[in-house]
Structures are given as C-alpha cells and as structure tokens.
C-alpha cells in the first residue's frame, strides 16, 4: 500500500519541468525584464513612471491577496499602504537624525531596507484592525473596511504629530549606509531599488499562494463552511491573510516612501483605495498576474492619459464597467482566452471571430470617444473644438454626429451579429 502510494506521488501534481515552466519561468522572465529596462536608456519621465508602476504592482498584488485569493472586498486597503508608508517615512527621518546625531540602531539601517519597516507597519495595522473586520466575508467585511477607512483617513488629518498635517511628513533617502553602491539620489538608482522590491513583492505574494495558509485562504473564499469541517477556523484564516495583505501593502508603502520621499494623509483616503480596487479588478483578480497588468495600465493612464484627455476618469469608469459586465476575468482573462483560443484546433475560426469582434469594438469606441471628447470640449465653454487628426468636430456639426453615430451603430451591429453566429454554432 505505502509502496503504491509513494510511487503515485510522482504521478500526482505537475512534474519538475512543468513546475519550472509554470512557476519559475515567469519569475525569471520578470527579473530579466526588470533588469533589461535600463539598457534602453529611459528618460526621467519613463523612470518615474516605472517607479510608480513598481509601487502600484506590489500594492495591487497585496490587494489581490484579499479580493482575488480570499474573496474579501475591501474599500480601505490604502489604510495599510499609508500606515506602512508612514512608518517607513518616519524611519527615514530616524535614519537621517541618527546619522547626523549620535548614531544608534537607525544610523546603521540602510534606506534600501525601509520597505521592511513598511511591511511591519502595514502588518501591525492589519493585525489591529483585522480582528474585528474578518469575522465574516462579503458585504459586512466590505462595509467595515469602508467605515475603518473613513475613520483612519479623518484621523490622518487630525493628528498632525504623526501624519504631518496637510503637507505630510517628508524625508531624505540619501542618508544612512549605502547598499549595492546605490546612493539612491538619482532616479536611475531609485529604479534599481524599486525593481528589487517589486520582484520581492511579486515573489512574496506568489510564494504565499503556495503555503498551507495561502491554499486554505482560497478554500475559505470558495467554501467557508466546509473549511470549518476540515479543522480550520475561517475567521482566523481570513485574519492571517489580512495581516499578510496589510504587510505587503505596507511594503508597497515603504517603496513609495523612498521613491517620493514624502507621505501625506491623502495616501490613507478612499481615493487610493478605490484606485487599487480598479487596478486589481481591471487586471483580473482570478489570475496571479492580473493585478500586475492592471497596475501597469492604470498607472500609465493616470499619469499620461490626462495629457490627452481630461475625461480620462470617464474612460476609466467605462473600462471598469465593461470589464465587470463582459469580462469578469479582466485583462488577464482576455489574454488567457486569446492565447488558448489560438492554440486550440479551431484557431483559424477563433481568429476570424475575434477579428470581427475587435472591429466591432473599435468602431463602437470611435463613436463613444468622439461623443465624450466633443461633449467635454463643448462643456468647458472655452470655445475649444475637438479636432482629431486635423478634422474639426464642433458640437453642432452634422459631420460630428455622423462620426458618433455611424461607427457606434455599425459596431453594435457587428458585435450582435458575431454573438448570434456564435450562438447559432453552439
């Protein structure tokens, strides 16, 4: 019996090479990408964007430990990001004071490792707030997180000695012992710091999914009742996951503290909490890499799209609603679907169908974007006119409304047809 069982262990689970391809390769790929980026000599803008993305990636990953992996919808995750960040920024101050003062522990603490302080801060906050919050999942959890976030955000503005009032607490990252020859002054050096911790953050959140606790968190998400009957307390599972999630959010906060050298009470408020929810969900909460995609896309949109259109928030809202309604798997889900569709037997058929769908979507988007842009330009009342590619589209022009309606109707029609065809085949 035991002999059989020992043999069958090998049959079970993925083989060594499968494991390597599925688990180790993506991490190596991530490391390579992170390491190769500077070769292209990015500008300061690109660097600062990359750094912001790194912070948001870790933040979104920590959020997905809750939403994706444990099924806990939080509206106040920025609390842990912010508290971790504040811990790190205060530690940065301590390093500065200690290195100009009488030394001590902080004098020998490298700024490079401040995210560890952030992790501790976030985890501690999670440990304190988590216990009452994690009693149940679902709506009560979401509501408690909302209430707690409101309270903490208000406290952020009230307690100036901790949160620095409106202008926040700032520090200088160029103090204390240097590590890896990085002074962390120029933004290129900060990039290495961010890249390192982004990798650690991704690795850490991934490793967590492989632990007994990580596995049980997924089990608790799917079936909390059953979990109780295999010896686990779902409340405790949630609580522990919550602490870790707070810790990784704090890690991201620590990264932000070094990157921006300042933390302000807004960091605790509902707005960044909403943003991280959007990142994770748009990226795809059921896929490990989903939040990474979401964080990259939304960071880019936030910092760059406002240059193109002041209605970027509207587009963001639309994107989110479309994802919720039609692609609950998020961007990652769409990619996975495309990829597996192209490898299947009827790849050609799939390809044709997608081409039609993409055409429909693009047409619809042309209509919607034109409508939004024309309205925005008109509603500003500065007499500005939307003029893409040199074409003037005033709000009262016939051409404008043609550009809005014809593609939109055509797009809707194509999508409907594609949908019907698919159903007809099925």
């Amino acid at each position, binding site marked *: *019996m*035991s002999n*059989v*069982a*020992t043999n*069958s*262990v090998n*049959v*079970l*689970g993925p083989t060594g090479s499968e*494991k390597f391809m599925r688990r180790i390769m993506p991490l190596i790929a991530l490391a390579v990408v992170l390491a190769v980026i500077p070769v292209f000599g990015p500008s300061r803008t690109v660097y600062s964007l990359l750094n912001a993305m790194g912070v948001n990636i870790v933040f979104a990953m920590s959020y997905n430990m809750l939403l994706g992996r444990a099924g806990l919808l939080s509206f106040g995750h920025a609390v842990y990001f912010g508290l971790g960040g504040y811990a790190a920024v205060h530690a940065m101050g301590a390093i500065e004071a200690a290195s100009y003062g009488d030394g001590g522990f902080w004098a020998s603490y490298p700024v490079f490792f401040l995210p560890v302080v952030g992790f501790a801060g976030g985890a501690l906050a999670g440990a304190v707030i988590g216990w009452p919050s994690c009693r149940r999942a679902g709506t009560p959890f979401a509501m408690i997180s909302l209430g707690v976030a409101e309270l903490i955000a208000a406290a952020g503005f009230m307690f100036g000695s901790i949160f620095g009032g409106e202008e926040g607490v700032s520090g200088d990252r160029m103090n204390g012992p240097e590590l890896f020859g990085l002074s962390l002054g120029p933004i290129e050096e900060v990039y290495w710091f961010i890249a390192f911790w982004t990798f650690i953050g991704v690795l850490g959140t991934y*490793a*967590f999914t*492989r*632990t*007994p*606790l*990580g*596995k*049980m968190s*997924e*089990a608790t998400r*799917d*079936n909390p*009742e*059953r*979990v*109780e*009957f*295999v*010896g*686990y*307390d779902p409340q*405790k*599972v949630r609580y*522990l996951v919550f602490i*870790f999630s707070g810790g990784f959010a704090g890690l991201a906060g620590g990264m932000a503290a070094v990157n921006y050298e300042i933390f302000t009470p807004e960091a605790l408020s509902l707005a960044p909490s909403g943003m991280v929810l959007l990142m994770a969900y748009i990226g795809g909460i059921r896929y490990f890499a989903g939040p990474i995609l979401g964080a990259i896309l939304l960071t880019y949109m936030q910092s760059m799209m406002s240059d193109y259109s002041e209605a970027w928030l509207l587009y963001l809202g639309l994107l989110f609603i479309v994802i919720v309604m039609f692609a609950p798997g998020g961007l990652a889900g769409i990619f996975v679907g495309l990829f597996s569709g192209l490898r299947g037997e009827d790849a050609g058929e799939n390809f044709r169908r997608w081409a039609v769908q993409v055409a429909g979507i693009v047409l619809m988007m042309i209509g919607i974007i034109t409508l939004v842009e024309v309205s925005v330009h008109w509603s500003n009342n500065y007499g500005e006119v939307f003029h893409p590619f040199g074409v003037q589209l005033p709000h009262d022009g016939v051409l404008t409304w043609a550009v809005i309606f014809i593609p939109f109707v055509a797009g809707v029609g194509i999508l409907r047809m594609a949908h019907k065809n698919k159903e007809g085949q099925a």
Partner: protein
Amino acid sequence: MSIPALSINDLHKSFGPAHIIRGVTLDIEPGERHAIIGPNGAGKSTLFNLISGGYHPSKGSIKLRGEEIGGMKPFKINRKGLSRSFQVSNIFSNMTVRENVRCGVLYSMGYGYGFLRNVGNLHDVQRKTAEILESVDLLDKANLPAALLPYADQRTLEIAITIAGGADVIMLDEPTAGMSHSETERAVALIKQATEGKTLLIVEHDMGVVFNLADRISVLVYGEIIATGKPTEIRGNEKVREAYLGDEADAIEGDAA
C-alpha cells in the same frame, strides 16, 4: 465498559417556537457503525449539525470520547477527531481533486496555518493525499477540477475529504443520495473499507445501504428516537412500522425479506 465514542444525552434544539430535537439520548461505541433513519423532517440533519458543531444545542450534552463538545465551533470538534460529510456535495469546486483532499489533510498533519512552507514540498502531505485518493479510487482523476467530476465522483470526493483528516468518528450524511444502483454498491464498499476500525454515524434513506452497513440503527421520528437496536430488532419493531407509512414501510419489510 469502555467510554462511548459518542454519547448524546437528552439533547434538545429549538428554532424559535419550533422544537426540532426533543430529547435525544444515544450512545455509540468505538468502532460501531451506527445508522440513523427516519422519515423526512424528523430532524436527522439538525441532529448531525448539532453533533458536528453547525448548531448550538438548546439543552443537553454531546460527548466525544467523554469530552463535552456541545456548542463547540465545528473546527474545534473536527480537530478532536470528528469529521462529517454533507448531503449536498460541499467540495472546493475551484480546486482540483488532489487539492480538495489536501485541504482535508493539511490540518491533521500539523501544518495548520503555516506560511513558511511550500505545500508542494510537503512530502508527507503529498503521500497522505495520494493514499486517500488511492483508497477511494480517484487517483486517475487527481488533477481534474473538482467541479468537472461526474456526480458520483463528487460524492466520493466528499467522503474522501471527510476521512482525509484521519478522524476516528466519521459522520456521513446520505452518502449515496442520487446514485445509481451500481454506484451505490461501489460507494458502500468504499465506505466499509475507508472506515475500517473507525466509528461511523450515517444518515441514509436507502434501506439497502443501511441494513448492509450498520451494526446498530436508531430511528428518529419528530425529534425523538423511538427505537435503537440491531437491524433485526428494528425490522420487527412495531413503533417503527407505524412511523413509516406506505412505501417506506414496505421498503423496510422488503429488505427484511
């Protein structure tokens, strides 16, 4: 006399004005296979939930090997070595079969809420999981998502999760409900083999299964046990016949024949 594996004494449960369990007293010896039968609405599921920690008793005591467990949280009871299955398949449908069983194994092997070990490297857990899968004949389906299993296999998986933790008191809630005749036969064989040497408490509608499996049978009617005894004693019991009217009474007799 040894301490009973499970000892229930004057157990009551009310939901508001509805008095569902009205003074159940029952002792189950270690190693005994005990079946609870009774018409629909007799309170069998409620009794199961009371024992396994799903409900809080209104009155009375439940002792597991002499230790009071009435009103304890389910996970605490489970850790003391009492495990149950569900009438409706209650599995982790987003996971593979192997992962399902592993969820049942982890706590009992001492890994608890651990977050420093990779589950892939826990060879004892792997081995135990494989053993369980082997014993319920699901090894070849180990890497299938549980949601994609055929119904009978899902029921089997339900049992596999229940026994995975190595509990020595096993409670099965209608394990063969909805199965075909041949599937039922296989399930009974499997239950017999998997609960070898353990205490088994089973609720079942299929009288064939009951009389085949059980050492003793209790009949629960309107929240009260009206008879307890060996299968032969139950068959001959007048009160049981009265409680079971029509077809079901025939079923008892038919099996008796």
